[in-house]
């Protein structure tokens, strides 16, 4: 039997994205406290935490929507400054936000290229865009949309997520962050989106998945990062924790040896 390209039995890639000591306040309210966060290529990192724990805020800092008050942003081993979505995009970081920004009155292809050609200084003709969109969906083995010229308003929730995710990978991004992509979906559609999430990571991307559903988290993630009241309680390998440990981390910030030393104090 010949060796296959991905035969490395024990891939432990360095993090592509590394945050250190991130603080973020909105006015007088500090939402993120000294948060560290690592994201690895080829892996799905699940970001979990209770409502209001700071997940979306952290992700918006990663995506350059919010600038943070203190801390370091490292990308591919170098410290960088990210003050706008444009700068994040330039690094190859793409966020698919909780409230998906797709235009209902445009078709799939138009949505996938919306606001992007200009950003990358490209002018593309219709046929090329159509082909690139089709190839991206094809490469992700997306077989659920019948026509890429379909209006987005006619798509199901799962298909909309699929298009949003495909849009995120169309531009050879390196890090894709998905904020609750399965929240509004039924079981069958969730399965489709999770498969897509897994495939992105298997294709070498670093994927961050925010989810409240522990089955989703345990089904696809390689690592789990748990935020508790704006602090990173723990970042653990999915093959080393149990459901109840993760639930404890989410609800009380600690579980046995894992997590914050004092739930009201500094990180362990």
């Amino acid at each position, binding site marked *: 039997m010949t060796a*296959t390209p991905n035969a490395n*039995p024990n891939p432990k890639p360095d993090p592509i994205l590394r945050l250190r000591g991130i603080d973020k306040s909105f006015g007088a309210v500090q939402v993120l406290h000294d948060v560290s966060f690592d994201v690895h290529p080829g892996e799905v990192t699940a970001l979990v935490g209770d409502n209001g724990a700071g997940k979306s805020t952290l992700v918006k800092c990663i995506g350059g929507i919010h600038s943070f008050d203190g801390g370091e942003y490292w990308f591919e081993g170098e410290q960088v400054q990210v003050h706008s979505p444009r700068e994040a995009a330039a690094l190859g970081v793409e966020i698919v936000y909780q409230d998906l920004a797709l235009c209902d009155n445009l078709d799939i292809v138009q949505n996938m290229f919306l606001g992007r050609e200009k950003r990358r200084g490209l002018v593309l003709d219709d046929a090329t865009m159509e082909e690139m969109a089709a190839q991206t969906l094809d490469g992700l*083995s997306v077989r659920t949309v019948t026509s890429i010229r379909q209006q987005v308003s006619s798509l199901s929730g799962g298909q909309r997520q699929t298009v949003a995710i495909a849009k995120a990978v169309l531009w050879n991004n390196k890090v894709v962050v998905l904020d609750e992509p399965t929240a509004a979906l039924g079981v069958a559609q969730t399965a489709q989106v999770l498969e897509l999430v897994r495939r992105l990571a298997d294709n070498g991307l670093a994927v961050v998945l925010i989810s409240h559903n*522990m089955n989703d988290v345990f*089904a696809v993630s390689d690592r789990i990062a748990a935020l508790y009241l704006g602090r990173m309680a723990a970042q653990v390998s999915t093959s*080393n924790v149990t459901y109840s440990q993760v639930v404890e981390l989410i609800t009380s910030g600690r579980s046995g040896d894992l997590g914050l030393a004092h739930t009201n104090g500094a990180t362990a």
Partner: protein
Amino acid sequence: MKAGPSQEEIRRHNLGTLLRHVHIGGSMSRAVLAERMGLNRSTILGLVSELGSAGLVREELPRDTGRAGRPSLVVRPESDRVYVLAFDVGVDRLAAARIGLGGVFLDRREIPMAPGRRDAGKVAEILAGSALDMVGTAQHGTYCVGVAAAVRGMVRRPDGLVRAAPHLGWEDEEFGEDLMRRLGLGLPVSVANEASLGALAEHLRGAGTGCQDLVYLHGDIGIGGGVITGGQLLTGDCGYGGEIGHMVVNPRDGRPCGCGAHGCLEAEAGERALLETARRDPTATGREAVRAVVEAADRGDITARAALRDVGDWLGIGVANLVNVLNPRTVVFGGTLREVFLGSAAQIRSRINRLALTSSRENLRLRVGELGDDAVLIGAAELAFSEILVGPLETLARAGA
């Protein structure tokens, strides 16, 4: 002392290997083939032209032109010309397909069937009828090069005798022989266990592509299992290996199993256990019934949740054992276990993490099958293709080309 392989043997081997590359990997350029096979380009050119003149591959421009530069030709399997027949004797359906080189479905028939005992001769008759119908509509100048059938039961190796298929009430059925006679194509019919074929399919074309160590769990009326280890399907001494559904996980006070034992994985985590624990209507079975439980649990139904937790627990225990014994890279949940996995992944993974050895589980991936309900049929097709991928020209000559 055995002499080394002859030139002829080497060539035959290379032809088979090249054909396998394009059959599994799809169209690729000669340069890519040269690299993957570790042969120089002129050897590849010779092999491609030999396969080309036999009508097994064709060279053409790639589909996605429009890129800068001169596109190089790709070698493509001749899916319309060379095909196999694949059969799946399911629980509630019989399926037959005509599948072209490269794994393309050219034609398929499905015959719904009420679950229960079935005369093996009758099943063979129905399948042969559908198959001959499909063969009849195939274009002139196309060749059937292999036939294989999947059965939910114990299949003896190498002769394919079906020792037992309990849900059909079969015992010692010469199903393959019978099917071969009825087809009258002059081709032997390979018979194999359905989950073994599912494992093969997911390994070659699905969630386990590129993964050499994989365990496949297939849920329908029971739980079937297939194991790929070191890239090879585990068969055991007589072909009965991989009966994961009958791995005993709860012998002391477990549920009775169809096999006569107590506490088999299938008895604890199979469809019946799930539907009973979830207190569903006992007449509703199959995929829809299982999905309904997962959906109910998702909406917060406490009984459904408890049932999935229970079943997930047993599945986790079963998989933990497999992880310790086989150290798979990937465990694939197929058939109705796909839904069950999505509804109880937290439970399954937690159990594995508590029970399996750290080194054995640290790179473990749990996946759902990518091929859906077609996994078994695709696996049967791959079994049927195995001969032409070993000796392409000889097999084609035998098929009358």
